[in-house]
C-alpha cells in the first residue's frame, strides 16, 4: 500500500517552525511520507508543492493570526487545481470564533496548542482521501 503523502508548510511571514517540524517528524515516524516545504510559502507555492508531490494531505502551521486570509486563498487554489480530495489540516493559534469559519471553507482538521501528536496522526489516518472511498 502506498504511504500517505503529506506536504507540511508554513505560509506567511512567521518563522516559528517548532510545531511544523515536530509534527513533520511525528507523521514520518508514524509511517507517512512527509515533504517539509519550509518557511514563508505563499498559498500558490504550497498548492504547487501538493500537486508536484501528489500529496494526500496538506498541513499548514500558522501562528501569526493570518489564517483568515491565507486559508481561503489556499482553498480556492486547491479547488482550482482539482485537489478536492486532498485533506487540508491547520495547526496553530486559532481563536474559537475562527474555527467554524475555517471548517466552512473545507479545512477539515484544526489543531491548537496542546494537541497530542497521536491525535493528529489518527485524525489524518482516519480522514485521508475519504472522498475517494465515499
Amino acid at each position, binding site marked *: 500500500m502506498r504511504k500517505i503523502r503529506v506536504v507540511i508548510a508554513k505560509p506567511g*511571514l*512567521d518563522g516559528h517552525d*517548532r510545531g511544523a517540524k515536530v509534527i513533520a517528524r511525528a507523521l514520518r515516524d508514524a509511517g507517512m511520507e512527509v515533504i517539509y516545504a*519550509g518557511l514563508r510559502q505563499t498559498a500558490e507555492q504550497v498548492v504547487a508543492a501538493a500537486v508536484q508531490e501528489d500529496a494526500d494531505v496538506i498541513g499548514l502551521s500558522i501562528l501569526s*493570526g493570518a489564517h483568515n486570509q491565507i486559508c481561503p486563498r489556499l482553498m480556492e487554489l486547491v479547488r482550482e487545481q482539482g485537489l478536492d480530495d486532498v485533506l487540508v489540516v491547520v495547526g496553530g493559534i486559532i481563536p474559537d470564533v475562527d474555527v467554524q469559519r475555517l471548517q466552512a471553507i473545507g479545512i477539515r482538521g484544526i489543531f491548537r496548542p*496542546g494537541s497530542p501528536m497521536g491525535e493528529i496522526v489518527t485524525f489524518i489516518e482516519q480522514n485521508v482521501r475519504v472522498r475517494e472511498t465515499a
Partner: protein
Amino acid sequence: MQLKSEAAASGPPSQGVAISDSPASARTRDFTTISGRAVEPVYGPAHLEGIDRDREIPLPGEFPYTRGIHPTGYRGKLWTMRQFAGFGTPEETNARYKELLRNGGTGLSVAFDLPTLMGRDPDHPLSLGEVGKCGVSIVSLADMETLFDGISLRDITTSMTINSPASMLFAMYLVVAEQQGADWTRISGTIQNDILKEFIAQKEYIYPPRPSMRLITDVFAFCAREVPKWNTISVSGYHIREAGATAVQELAFTLRDGIEYVQYGVDAGLDVDEFVPRISFFFNAHSDFFEEIAKYRAARRIWARVMKDRFGAKTERALKLRFHSQTAGVSLTAQQPYNNVVRTALQALAAVLGGTQSLHTNSLDEALALPTSEAVTIALRTQQVIAHESGVANVADPLGGSYFLERLTTDMEREAFEIFDTIDRMGGMVAAIERGYPQQEIAESAYRFQQAVERHEKVIVGVNDFVAEAEAPVPILYIDEAAAGRQLAKLERLRRDRDHARVERALEGLREAARGSANTMVPMLEAVRAYATVGEMCDALRDVWGEYEEVPSI
C-alpha cells in the same frame, strides 16, 4: 501520586467545569528536569565538593558575579517591569502604552508585526493577513512619531524587539527623540538586534549571516560615538528556548552568540571595554524552577570569565552580565487558560531569584491570541505581588549556597563550556549555523520533549493530565483587518506626498554604504528623515546583499 490526586480532588473546580480524575501515575517514574536532566533525591555537603566558595560563589557584586551583579540585590532598585506590547496601528498601540505607564509599568517594549520584522511594506504579497497581527505595524517615521506621541523619550527607556531591520527602526526612534528635543547622549533603551538567534531559532532573517553581522557592528560603532547609553544588542536565548532547546542549550548557544558578537566587534576594531558594557542578554524563564535559577547564575559566571580570559576585558561593566527575562510562552496552554497565571507567577519568581534586571510576564490568554488589556494587567500585577508582597526582593541571591542550586549552577557552567568547545572547533557560531548545528540540536530536543509529553513522562496540567471536559471560553483580543486597511491607506498617502527625489537619493546612499565599508547608520538616518519605508530601506540592502534562504529539513 497522592499529592497529585489530592490536589485534583480538593481544588475548587473553576467555573463549574468537570475535572477528570488523574490516571494513576507512579511517583517512581520520572525525576528529571524539564530539560531531561536527572536530579538526585537530596543534596548535601558532598555535592559541593570541588566548588571553591571564594572563587565560585563570593558575595553578590563580586567577580564572577554568580550571585548577582549588585552587592545589595534589588534593594537599590527593583527590576524593570517591562511588558512587551504592540498590535494593530501605531494609534492603538500608543493608547496601550499610555495605559501600561499609568498602571505602574516602568519601561516600554515594542512588539512589531511580521511585515515590519521581515522588512516588508503592508502592500507586499507576503504581508497578506499579517499587518498589525503579531505586533504594531510601523511603516515609516510617520508611524514612529504616532507610536510615541505624548510619551517623553527622555523619561522612559524603550526596548524594541527588532532584528533584521533593527538599525532602521532604531534610526526612526532616534529621529523621534530628536524631534522631542531629547539628547541622544541621554536617552536609553535596547534594540534586540540579535540576528544569530534568528538563524538558529526564530527565523526572522533577511540577509545572509555575514552582511547581517556587519549591520550589527555598524550599530555598535555608531552608538559608542553618538548614543552611549543605548543597549545595542540583546543577545537572546528566549527564542532558542521557545524553539525547543534545553536549559543548557539555551545557556550555551546564547552565550556563544554573545562571544561571536564580541569577536566581530573586536575584529571591526572596537574596544572591548567600550562596547561590551552595552551588550545585554535576554533569557527565557521556563517552568523548571531551580534549573532556571541555576541557568541565570551560571550565565553571569560564564560571561564574566569569558570576557576576562578570552577577551581581556578590564572594566567591571564589561564583565557583568545584565539580562531581561520573559516567562515561557511555550509553556502556556490553550486548555484551562487561567492556570497560566500560576505558571507565569512561578516562572517570574525564578527569574527574580536568578537576579533579572527586567522582566516581562506573559498573559493568561496568549496561547489563544494576543492578550487583552485585562490579561496584561494581571500579568503586570503578578510582578508587583512578587516585588512588594513576597519578600524575595529584600535579600540578594537568597538561595545562594543551596547544595542543590550550587551543584546545578556548576554543572550547567561546565556543560556550556563543552558546547563552546564544539562550536569553536566548527570555526565559530556563524560557521556552526551555516552547517545547521544549533538548529538540528534544538529540533532534536523539541521532538524528545514532545515524545516525553506523549508518553506521559512529563505532565502538563490540563493538557495530558487533569483535563477538563468542558471549559468556559475566556474573552480574547480579536484583531481584524481594519488595521491593515488603515496602514495601507496611510502608505498610499505617504508615497504620494513625500519628496520622491530625496527618498531615491537616500536609498541610493544606503546602497552605496552597503557596497562599501562606511557605517550604514548614517545613510539610514537620512532615509528615515526622508520618510522612506521599512520595506524600501530593506529592499535597498537586498539589492546589494541578496536574501538568505534556509534549506528546509526536519
